[in-house]
């Protein structure tokens, strides 16, 4: 470590943590140790999660909620046990409010479709409005565009300020008496901005609109308490929080899940079926048609155990320190422009930037030659790039295993990029 790290407080014991993540030991390009700075795209997986997946498949694999034999009951207990763990992790009042999906995109599509097919008072139709923001991931834009196109509902959104925050100055025009649903991200995947949930929810409640929060970039990094948030739906994905791919979560308030109609039909979501009609199982099963991602749910349960043992407050503190250090060091690089908040205040650990006129693809490629893995492109948030007049960005994102030395490696790598294309 260089002297620049002195004074950083709140860091986790990354030397110990990194031993849990086999991939972080990898070398690429003839002996360069990987510097993994793309956790906002997907996190690496600790051995504890990999072991849980393996043990499930080796010892307990069976379909859930069906068989009466020992292994089938074990599989069901593991799957439903994962639901308990996730419910506790987000402080859900009831485990039945936790729906397993494929990913956050599916969770958000599920909400949009519940509302599209709902009866009053939830129904979204041509006389109503939907509110989102300009900083959403495409997964929290396109489902609402689809709903708007199919129902005739008007889609409105909050714009962004020059410093990468939501422009709430016209909140009363964006969220109106006609608004049925307000859906926004807790933490931007491109800008890193942490949004002022309370202000938005207060306005939504004033007009009786439901609130859906995309917590994909929040659940892995901070304490997520759905009761404190006071939202109606919260969506997130497992693979960004040390879990496997193929497992996401939708939390919804119980009374809503009881009232709202199912979206996908199939096995497991029914009560009785005749050739003329069917009745449905209670939530959460009403929204989990077909064989669910069982092993993936078990893996997510193990991830939640892993994160909880370290402590989400501790993880948040660590990332805050790294972010503070990174925004400071990055701004020392000539021609580097951070897209998003330039301080660590109300900011997550994903930092996007441009580097002079050098295209992010070239930045990413030359960094890769040095073993540094960053994301380049528009990060599934193209409207943000359009807003700031840039084609794409380079994004470095940090997690519980990230170190100040990796920030230094990035800064040095960027100097090399500048020299290469200079």
């Amino acid at each position, binding site marked *: 470590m260089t002297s620049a790290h002195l004074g950083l407080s709140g860091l986790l014991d990354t030397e110990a943590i990194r031993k849990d993540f086999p991939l972080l030991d990898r070398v690429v390009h003839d002996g360069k140790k990987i510097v993994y700075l793309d956790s906002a795209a997907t996190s690496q997986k600790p051995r504890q999660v990999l072991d849980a997946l393996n043990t499930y498949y080796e010892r307990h694999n069976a379909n859930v909620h069906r068989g009466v034999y020992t292994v089938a009951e074990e599989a069901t207990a593991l799957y439903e046990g994962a639901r308990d763990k996730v419910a506790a992790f987000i402080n859900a009042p009831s485990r039945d409010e936790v729906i397993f999906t494929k990913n956050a995109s599916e969770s958000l599509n599920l909400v949009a479709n519940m509302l599209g097919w709902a009866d009053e008072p939830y129904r979204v139709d041509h006389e109503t409005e939907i509110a989102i923001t300009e900083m959403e991931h495409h997964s929290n834009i396109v489902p609402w565009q689809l709903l708007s196109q199919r129902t005739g509902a008007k889609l409105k959104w909050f714009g962004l300020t020059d410093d990468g925050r939501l422009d709430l100055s016209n909140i009363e025009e964006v969220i109106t008496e006609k608004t049925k649903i307000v859906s926004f991200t807790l933490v931007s995947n491109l800008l890193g901005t942490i949004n002022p949930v309370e202000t938005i929810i207060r306005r939504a409640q004033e007009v009786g609109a439901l609130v859906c929060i995309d917590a994909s970039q929040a659940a892995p990094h901070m304490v997520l308490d759905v009761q404190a948030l006071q939202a109606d739906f919260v969506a997130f994905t497992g693979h960004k929080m040390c879990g496997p791919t193929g497992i996401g979560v939708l939390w919804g308030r119980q009374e809503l899940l009881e009232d709202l109609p199912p979206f996908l039909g199939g096995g497991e979501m029914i009560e009785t079926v005749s050739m003329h009609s069917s009745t449905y199982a209670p939530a959460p099963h009403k929204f989990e048609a077909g064989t669910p991602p069982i092993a993936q749910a078990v893996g997510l349960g193990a991830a939640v155990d892993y994160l909880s043992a370290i402590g989400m407050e501790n993880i948040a503190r660590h990332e805050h320190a790294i972010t503070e250090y990174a925004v400071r060091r990055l701004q020392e690089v000539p021609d580097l422009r951070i897209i998003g908040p330039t301080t660590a205040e109300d900011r997550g650990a994903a930092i996007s930037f441009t580097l002079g006129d050098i*295209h992010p*693809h070239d930045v990413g490629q*030359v960094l890769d030659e040095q073993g540094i893995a960053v994301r380049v492109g528009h990060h599934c948030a193209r409207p943000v790039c359009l807003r700031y007049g840039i*084609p*794409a960005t380079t994004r470095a994102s940090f997690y519980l295993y990230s170190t100040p030395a990796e920030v230094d490696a990035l800064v040095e790598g960027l100097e090399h990029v500048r020299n290469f*294309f200079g």
Partner: protein
Amino acid sequence: MYQDVILDHYKHPHGRGLRDGDAEVHHVNPTCGDEITLRVKYDGSRIEDVSYEGQGCSISQASASVLNELLVGKELAEAQKIQGTFLELMQSKGQIEPDDAMEEILEDAVAFAGVSKYPARVKCALLSWMAWKDATAQALGDAERKSA
């Protein structure tokens, strides 16, 4: 991957800027946001001009510059042969070591051989070539319709 030839074309592009044309297309590379607007102008079956404007990485921009250098002034059949050879090279996953015959056809474009090893970058290199193919089909299609 970043051969000097590529960096040269990137820093000093040939024929950049939009000029008069028979057809115009706009192609994008959705994963990274590379964009190109390209126009072709034909004199019968001879390529009179390929003009373009775009933004993107060094590979996509240099490739457009090389395309302009190689194709302008050529007969369509010859240009199609060059395009086909370039496509074959770019889809080779680094397996083709360009020989003298290929080098004669592709000239500066052989410098992109190394790019073919990087699946994420192949489409950057092909962006302008696909745009040219599309624009050509439109331009000549229109001409056929008009003469019919």
